């Protein structure tokens, strides 16, 4: 039977009481008035020292006795069928232990880098030597690697603007006619690769005597891959153990075991020896997924108050050979007031002969938000309005409206915004253009599933919290430990969190910003139950009734008198540790089931060289209950840096004649570095959600939706003309300025 419970939810600007139905056996939710001693404080990442000193063991660091090195021999053509494969020389090469086909004759290769042969040798160099001896013949087929030229692609003019007519809609036309300002334009962005520092890869160890498969994998889904490895190896799932104690980043590309994981297993089973198969950097860029490119066209109108009167959006994605998951999405809350007919969204994926796109940190949103927030700014410019006022005219969210105001004040929006776009601030430096831009953020996640977390209290007063889910760098270990420390009233240093091992209760895949909000309530419940068990055992040891025994702030009390510290009490629990599990119940009513957020960026553009530098960014972000302040801020900071990189630098360069990536490295695949990182400011807005006993929301995705949009808008404010393409490289800036100059010239002639 569920029990009704009143909980105070909301945030500083909007608090209210919500009646929720508590699941039987659960503890009541932490509410707006809860005062924390561990949760939400600025504790350091528990494994931070291990990481920066190199002691943390990633899959890449796993070395086993007798281990072989595996690699995949890959297609050198973008499309064709395998005619024949000759591995005889490779099989005879020094050190080679196994050579396997991954695709049979007649099978199609779908991109440069598709796997054809897997081999294992005593050393990595021997494996590479052998790979050079594999001879593959193809029936080569014509390929298309540029999604702009793929079947079904829209027709573009010389400036990259879609020229195809829109599907008819009387409602849209009416909405457009009702507006005072109207925009119709095309935005485009390139493929971004995930570029996790640890590449994809697996160490597989098939132990034939036991029939056990033990796997170390750089994965975002420890529990999910256990099933996938078992199925692929035809080994019972109860004989597969997967480890991922540390994962060097994923960003959405590391869910399935992949060709690298499955072939590590095959090679190990073929040789009876452990096999390590990690991708190199070129493979990581070209064979392990990416954020698809996109072309987005919007026509929209707004009335003189800035309120949108019509919104027509269509996009085309370039997700590679899969031809799917290239979708984009845009901030729909801005048009919540529009009648259904006056807003429209359409998307089409364009298949090409390139590596397939995969989920990447807020899939589809950085693309769509860049276009949509860009369109809003163009409307604001036409109306002579502050873009912030245009957002406020359309944004119905009380939380984000609060955040817009808070952010604008903290950032100094009015002062940083260039009142005369394209005009230099300092007349003595006419080439230095400055501007500011903003964009909104959102994501929806309070977690879910019915995951379980184990909490164990030992006789010496130390505590363990365990779940099989992986910590992909977000700080899951620290978060679980903080919740348990809070609930038990013990210092964080006494709690050890273990993640990334299928020996523990299964955990969620780390996708969609779900890991923390899914596991946090189970961790809290596990700790609460362990605490209750501790009280019972201590009461028995003291010969008192458990109901008489209070436990507060790390001390057991009888009639308010301190009797025993936590550690002293643990000594009395006997040799059997207390071990409890907490489960994850379904979410109940919550203040909100998503998060908001907004970001501000300031840029400088050198109008002579076309070079753009981001000089300042602010992210205002809510994420329900903040569990670990520094780690939450770190998530946001990472999103900002990744967003700067996406906005200004990152682009997969293919030579379409050959379908081959040219910058599959970190030399010319450019990622923003320390000197490119400007002043970054993060403000977390605490929100009590209800929803479950913790009320945390995921934070991986939300701050990744807005940065490129805000930076692009800042550049448009600096230049006085939008670039409408990412990355914003000097060639594009100079072209936009030249277009603006030509337009001004022809206007002058027209006058």
């Amino acid at each position, binding site marked *: 039977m569920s029990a009704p419970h009143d909980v105070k939810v909301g945030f500083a600007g909007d608090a209210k009481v919500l009646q929720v139905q508590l699941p039987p056996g659960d503890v009541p939710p932490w509410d707006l008035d809860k005062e924390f001693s561990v949760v939400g404080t600025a504790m350091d990442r528990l494994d931070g020292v291990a990481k920066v000193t190199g002691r943390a063991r990633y899959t890449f660091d796993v070395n086993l006795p007798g281990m072989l090195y595996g690699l995949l021999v890959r297609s050198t053509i973008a499309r064709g069928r395998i005619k024949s494969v000759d591995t005889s020389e490779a099989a005879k090469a020094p050190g080679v232990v196994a050579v396997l086909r991954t695709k049979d004759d007649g099978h199609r290769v779908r991109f440069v880098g598709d796997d054809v042969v897997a081999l294992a040798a005593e050393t990595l160099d021997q494996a590479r030597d052998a790979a050079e001896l594999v001879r593959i013949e193809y029936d080569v087929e014509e390929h298309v690697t540029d999604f702009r030229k793929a079947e079904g692609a829209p027709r573009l003019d010389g400036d990259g603007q879609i020229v195809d007519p829109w599907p008819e809609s009387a409602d849209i036309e009416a909405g457009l006619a009702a507006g005072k300002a109207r925009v119709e334009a095309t935005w485009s962005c390139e493929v971004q690769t995930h570029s996790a520092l640890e590449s994809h890869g697996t160490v597989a160890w098939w132990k034939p005597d036991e029939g056990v498969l033990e796997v170390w994998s750089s994965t975002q889904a420890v529990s999910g891959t256990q099933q996938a490895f078992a199925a692929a190896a035809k080994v019972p799932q109860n004989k597969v153990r997967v480890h991922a104690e540390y994962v060097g980043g994923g960003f959405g590309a590391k869910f399935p075991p992949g060709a690298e994981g499955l072939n590590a297993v095959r090679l190990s089973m073929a040789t009876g020896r452990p096999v390590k198969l990690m991708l190199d950097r070129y493979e990581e860029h070209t064979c392990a997924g990416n954020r698809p490119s996109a072309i987005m066209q919007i026509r929209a109108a707004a009335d003189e108050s800035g309120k949108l009167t019509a919104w027509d959006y269509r996009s085309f994605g370039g997700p590679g050979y899969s031809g799917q998951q290239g979708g984009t999405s845009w901030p729909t809350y801005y048009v919540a007031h529009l009648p259904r007919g006056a807003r429209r969204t359409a998307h089409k994926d364009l298949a090409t002969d390139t590596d397939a796109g995969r989920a990447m940190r807020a899939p589809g949103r950085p693309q769509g938000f860049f276009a949509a927030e860009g369109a809003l700014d163009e409307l604001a410019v036409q109306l002579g309005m502050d873009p912030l006022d245009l957002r406020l005219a359309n944004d119905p969210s009380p939380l984000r409206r609060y955040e817009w105001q808070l952010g604008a004040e903290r950032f100094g929006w009015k002062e940083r915004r260039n009142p005369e776009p394209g005009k230099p601030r300092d007349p*003595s430096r006419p080439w230095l253009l400055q501007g500011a831009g903003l964009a909104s953020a959102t994501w929806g996640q309070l977690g879910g599933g019915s995951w379980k977390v184990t909490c164990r209290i030992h006789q010496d007063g130390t505590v363990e919290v365990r779940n099989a889910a992986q910590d992909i760098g977000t700080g899951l270990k620290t978060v679980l430990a903080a919740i348990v420390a809070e609930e038990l009233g013990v210092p964080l240093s006494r709690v050890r969190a273990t993640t990334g091992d299928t020996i523990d209760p299964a955990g969620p895949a780390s996708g969609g910003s779900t890991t923390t909000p899914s596991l946090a309530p189970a961790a809290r419940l596990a700790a609460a139950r362990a605490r209750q068990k501790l009280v019972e055992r201590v009461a028995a040891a003291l010969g008192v009734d458990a109901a008489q025994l209070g436990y507060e702030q790390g001390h057991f009390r009888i009639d308010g008198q301190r009797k025993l510290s936590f550690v002293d009490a643990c000594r009395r629990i006997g040799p059997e540790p207390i071990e409890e599990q907490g489960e994850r119940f379904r979410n109940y009513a919550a203040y909100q089931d998503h998060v908001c957020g907004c970001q501000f960026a300031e840029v400088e553009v050198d109008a*002579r060289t076309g070079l753009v530098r981001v000089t300042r960014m602010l992210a205002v972000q809510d994420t329900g209950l903040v569990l670990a302040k520094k780690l939450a801020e770190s998530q946001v900071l990472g999103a900002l840096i990744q967003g700067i990189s996406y906005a200004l630098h990152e682009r997969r360069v293919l030579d379409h004649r050959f379908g081959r990536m040219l910058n599959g490295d970190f030399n010319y695949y*450019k990622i*923003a570095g320390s000197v490119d990182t400007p002043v970054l400011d993060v403000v977390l807005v605490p929100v009590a959600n209800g929803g479950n006993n913790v009320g945390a929301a995921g934070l991986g995705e939300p701050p990744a939706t807005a940065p490129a949009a805000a930076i692009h808008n800042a550049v448009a404010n600096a230049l006085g003309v939008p670039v409408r393409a990412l990355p914003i490289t*000097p060639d594009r800036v100079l072209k936009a300025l030249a277009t603006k100059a030509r337009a001004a010239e022809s206007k002058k002639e027209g006058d």
Partner: protein
Amino acid sequence: MKPFEIVRAEGIAATSKAAGATPGAVFKAAGIDLLDRMKERQFQPPALVDLLRLRSELAAVKVEPDGGIAIGALVTLAGLAAAPELADPAFAGLREAAGIAATPQIRSRATVAGNLLQQARCWYLRSAAFPCAHKGGETCFAMYGENRYHSVLAYDDCVRVHPSNIAPPLLTLGAEVTVQRGDAVRRIKLAELWPERPTAAAPDHTLAPDEIVTWIHLPKPAAGSRGAYCESREKLSFDWATTAAAAFATLADGKVVDARLCLGAVAPGPVPVPAATEMLAGKVPTAALCDEVAAAAFAGAKPLYHNAYKVPTGTAIAARALRLAFGIED
């Protein structure tokens, strides 16, 4: 990486002779780029001759009796940027170029001669998948391919880009180089390190396989001279210049006695611009004149499909370097 032999000898002559006696041997100083290329199997020499053994002889910056400067070939970029012997404003461009290259880690390791002699940058050249003309193949894949970072000037049938940061400022300073092969020592102009016509078939540098750069010599600059170096780069952390320019100027009574300009990152070799010297001689330098000279430096540019931006960007960078050298506020 394929197995290779490390060859070590004592002293410059013996090291050169050891290289000559080892078939296929190449010199390795810091090995910054060389080892990367070897790990990626772009280049698989059977033997490396270790030059770092010569550090006791060649890692110093010295003031010569005539007031000139001698820079040991094994001085690091960080060492060059911080050398007190180069405090004169005439060397400001050289210090700047050395001080902003690559990353702090690389600068503390990479050597002056290695920076001058490194392989050209081109993603086709540096991929085993493309048998390009500079590697003995038939085609320059970049010419009509993806060429946003390639040459816009002074190229022939290969549009690779010369990546050395310090070559342009050294050329404006009138640098010479001592090279040694066995016991034979010769001193040449710095520009002679690179082929006069950097065709596809031409090597990256003109030295014999067993010839070692030992010293770089800078003549004593005229009093009141000033050097400057500017580059455009997309990232500030660890990136290559898309265009670069070094300028050097000597003024007397407000007029130009001597002015030199050299471009980098826009052609297969560094590009001295003698016309700049002619255009500026005897003139009172102004910002407008700098713009004019910079425009003239790119007058012969033939940009490729994706790199037309390098002409306005490079022109702005060259003009800025000139202004800095003249002490005109940018």
